[in-house]
């Protein structure tokens, strides 16, 4: 299996929020995340972005 670069891994992390990744993609990504703190942080942060953007404009957030 090809070793993923951070650029490729971050693309898969993003796409994983929008489509179901294939088996090889999931395995490759998991292996990459085991050894890469940068992409692990990126992965947490794009999920956080999703939570934050979903909350924009909720009544709790007064202008």
């Amino acid at each position: 299996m090809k070793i993923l670069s951070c650029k490729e891994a971050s693309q898969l992390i993003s796409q994983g929020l929008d489509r179901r990744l294939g088996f090889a993609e999931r395995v490759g990504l998991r292996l990459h995340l085991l050894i890469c703190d940068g992409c692990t942080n990126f992965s947490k942060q794009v999920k956080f972005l999703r939570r934050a953007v979903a909350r924009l404009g909720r009544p709790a957030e007064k202008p």
Partner: protein
Amino acid sequence: MESERAYLMRYASLQLRDAHAAEDAVQETLVAALAGQAGFGGRSNLRTWLTGILKHKIVDAIRRVSRDIPAPTDEGELEALFERRGHWVEMPAAWENPDQSLEQKQFFSALEECLARLPVKSAQVFMMREHLGYETGDICKELDVTPTHCWVLLYRARLALRECLQKNWFSK
């Protein structure tokens, strides 16, 4: 209801990125709201109810204009985040307790500023996906772009937002 107009304008501008289009969408929303007041009936918060109507008007507006907007070409800045061999130039650092930020008004101002800096098409696709909650397949159909292009636009939006929040919020 007038007092909600400023809020709705800000909300619509964030997603449509065009003052006229935002004004039209808000106007249509207020007209629809006045016509359908019975539908409100105090069941929910007024702002929540108006925003719900506005979301539909925003999607209608995006649908009308999206074909005129060219895809962004300013790839350079984001490409610079990676070295030639695909490593991060600067590894994303951990954010401490990011969920605490969700309780802070200033965080949402920072987030809105970062969203406003995205290229228009990226911003529209991103907001349809992450705020309005559409599936990627539906966004592609609405905006007449291929799924691959949709994923690229979403990826670029996320990279850019992450960078922007890192600079303007999490490292402060």
